[in-house]
């Protein structure tokens, strides 16, 4: 038998229990928009029973724990899928920059000055393609009128346009490469910050949970969020320990063990400005499977590097072939043996200044003294249709077209992969939200539930109070 005072204390405990229910519901409501927050529930159990002659008698209820609703499996999957999505995003960004650097687009509305093709209705192309066509057409025009100063000047100007276009694309690609290196370095810095944060949170969680005083829910939420931020940068392997700590390894190298940071990451130049990632203490190059670091490295070392090589090969083949043909010709004053282009690749291709200053030195004639001879100009024009062994047996324009298509192909493929990955991640996030997300309706209902129970417990106190009054009144 509890007796009246026992019942009073039961009502008191009940008030506390219901109050903690409203407190937890309030905490949930307050965090409805907090990223990474998982909803909490107060666990209420019946209090111990007192044996009585008529059997064990209940003593009310106690709030025994505040638990959070988390699904470890979904959390792990999200960590790994985040890395994959982030890798595609980084790669997409790199490729979008590369596409922009190339500056190649189709403009069907181009008219007049923007391209002679516009006059024939096929539209213009901005970028190297247009300038390359223009150069060979200028050689054609010169071949029809080899003594014309106007055609010679026009040829120089078209050749200069092409050289400038090559220079610009090359310099844009170089600066893109160093931007990607910068982005990698910044990713590594952020990853180190996240590693420190996770170790600190591990420490706090382990301290809080030591002695079995329940889970440090909010700290765990924060740690999960930090781990997802880290996974965005680099793929991680996690191991959860019984003491609440999480160990983290990258590429098999343990970086965090409970509260301790064993190692951090740094970038280093593997030669030629190719930045890679390694561990600071261990010094081993880290093979990153995914995450934005991997996406950046992938775009830089594969697609971007190929693009840069292709553009350089195109420019150097053009320089070599045009010069070889041009050198055999004669200028209007009989000059011979001069190069048409100077330079070795896309970064430094330029029209020979001697020719630019005096276009009559362009060696269009195949015979000394025969100014009306156009054999060299014609041969230069016909280079446009010649398959080049250095360009995989393609013509200059075909080869450039393939280079453009390759960039487009990679970007297009990455766009598709990213979209697919986003769908996967979105589904997982949806699933997780269904488990951990706060529902205002639920919390409001809970609030009413606990409020009513609180009112009822209060009523119990007044009832017991009245009963005590009745007992006291017996004496009068």
């Amino acid at each position, binding site marked *: 038998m509890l007796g009246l005072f026992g019942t009073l204390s039961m009502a008191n405990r009940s008030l506390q229990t219901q109050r903690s229910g409203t407190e937890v519901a309030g905490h949930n409501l307050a965090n*409805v*928009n907090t990223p990474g927050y998982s909803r909490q529930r107060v666990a209420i159990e019946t209090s111990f029973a007192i044996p009585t002659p008529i059997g064990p008698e209940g003593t009310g209820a106690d709030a025994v724990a505040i638990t959070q609703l988390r699904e470890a499996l979904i959390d792990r999957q999200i960590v790994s899928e985040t890395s994959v999505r982030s890798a595609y995003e980084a790669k997409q960004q790199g*490729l979008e920059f590369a*596409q922009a650097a190339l500056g*190649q*687009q*189709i403009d*069907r*509305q181009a008219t007049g000055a923007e391209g*002679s*093709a516009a006059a*024939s*209705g*096929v*539209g*213009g*192309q901005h970028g190297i*393609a247009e300038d390359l*066509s223009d150069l060979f*057409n200028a050689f*054609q*025009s010169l*071949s*029809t*009128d080899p*003594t014309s100063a106007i055609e010679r000047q026009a040829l120089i100007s078209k050749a200069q346009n092409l050289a400038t276009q090559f220079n610009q694309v090359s310099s844009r690609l170089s600066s893109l490469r160093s931007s990607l290196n910068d982005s990698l370095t910044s990713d590594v810095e952020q990853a180190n910050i996240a590693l420190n944060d996770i170790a600190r949170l591990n420490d706090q969680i382990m301290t809080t949970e030591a002695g079995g005083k329940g889970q440090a829910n909010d700290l765990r939420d924060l740690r999960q969020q930090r781990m997802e931020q880290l996974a965005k940068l680099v793929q991680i392997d996690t191991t959860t320990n019984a003491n609440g700590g999480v160990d983290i390894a990258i590429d098999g190298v343990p970086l965090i063990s409970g509260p301790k940071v064993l190692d951090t990451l740094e970038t280093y130049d593997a030669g030629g400005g190719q930045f890679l990632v390694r561990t600071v203490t261990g010094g081993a190059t880290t093979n990153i499977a995914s995450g934005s670091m991997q996406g950046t490295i992938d775009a830089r070392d594969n697609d971007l590097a190929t693009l840069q090589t292709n553009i350089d090969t195109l420019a150097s083949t053009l320089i070599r072939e045009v010069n070889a043909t041009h050198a055999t010709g004669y200028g209007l004053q009989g000059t011979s043996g001069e190069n048409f282009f100077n330079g070795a690749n896309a970064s430094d291709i330029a029209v020979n200044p001697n020719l630019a200053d005096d276009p009559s030195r362009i060696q269009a*004639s195949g*015979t000394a*003294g*025969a100014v*009306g*001879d*156009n054999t060299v100009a*014609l041969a230069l*024009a016909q280079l*446009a*249709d010649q398959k080049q062994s250095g360009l995989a047996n393609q013509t200059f*324009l075909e080869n*450039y*077209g*393939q280079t*453009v*298509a390759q*960039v*487009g*192909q990679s*970007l*297009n493929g990455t766009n598709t992969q990213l979209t697919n990955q986003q769908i996967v991640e979105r589904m997982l*996030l*949806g699933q997780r*939200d*269904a*488990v951990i*997300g*706060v*529902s*205002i*309706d639920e919390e*409001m*209902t809970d609030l009413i539930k606990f409020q009513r129970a609180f009112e009822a417990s209060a009523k119990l106190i007044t009832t017991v109070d009245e009963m005590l009054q009745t007992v006291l009144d017996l004496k009068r």
Partner: protein
Amino acid sequence: MRVTANTFPNNLLDELTSLSQRQNKLQTQAASGQLVRLPEDDPAAMRRILDLQAQGKSVAQYQRNIARDQELATASFNSMKALKQVTDRVREIAVSTDGLESPEDLKLYAKEVTELIKQAVQTANSRNGADYLFAGTLSDQPPFVLTTDADGNVTSVAYQGNTVLAENEIASGLTLSAQAVGANTSGGAPRGLITDSRVGADFFNHLISLQNNLLSGNVTAIANTDQPNLDKDEDNLLFHLGSNGALQSRLEATNALAAQHADTLDALVSKEADADLAQTLVRLSQTQTAYQAALQSAGKILGSSLLDYLR
């Protein structure tokens, strides 16, 4: 599935983002009229378009080359026509000397022939722009140089051009020359306009011979030698006029072919690159409807919760 406070906003945001992206893409397609603009839009089509456009530009260039050749051919034709008028007159003179005995009359004719030689040399030294038409590739100097004696009679006309013709490309891999050389005594191609050893044409020397025979009153030589020679010269000139006509009609035909090719290329590029406007606009309006529906329904759902019904 349990729906939480953030399920609606998150899903709505995802949907609105993807609808906005689609609207943006369709709007760009509608505004530019193009399905393919950047390499990422359709890499394979992009490559085909680049190739087709390069071809289109080449064709346009071939058309410009043809126009230039036509200009050259027309200029050559005009000079040939003028030379033909000279041969006509000279042959008239040669024929009319038959039976003429008076040395004075013959000298008068000789004087006219001398002038005609000068006129013919001037015509044969015609230029198109800065270039001499009939000098081969030595086009910076007059092909024919005339020498006269103290009496003003022509003693020689020397050819200082060469027999090389500059060829232009008028279609992929197809080159031709719209030029004719002044003289060719090598016996090989190309045929000389004034002098050609194969057919025995040597217009200026034959004229000089006529002039000299007129001066000396040698009417027999005129009848027996000069007249047949001048016939050969006229045949040679007619051959060139005929060739020029053939060249012009060939250029005309090639140009028509090039224009046709350009049209075909345009159609092909259009097929690859251009957006079907009707289809694009229908899709755009579908997407806009979906976007508006999303906004409207979200406005209703997000605005209401249990809180509205609790006091």
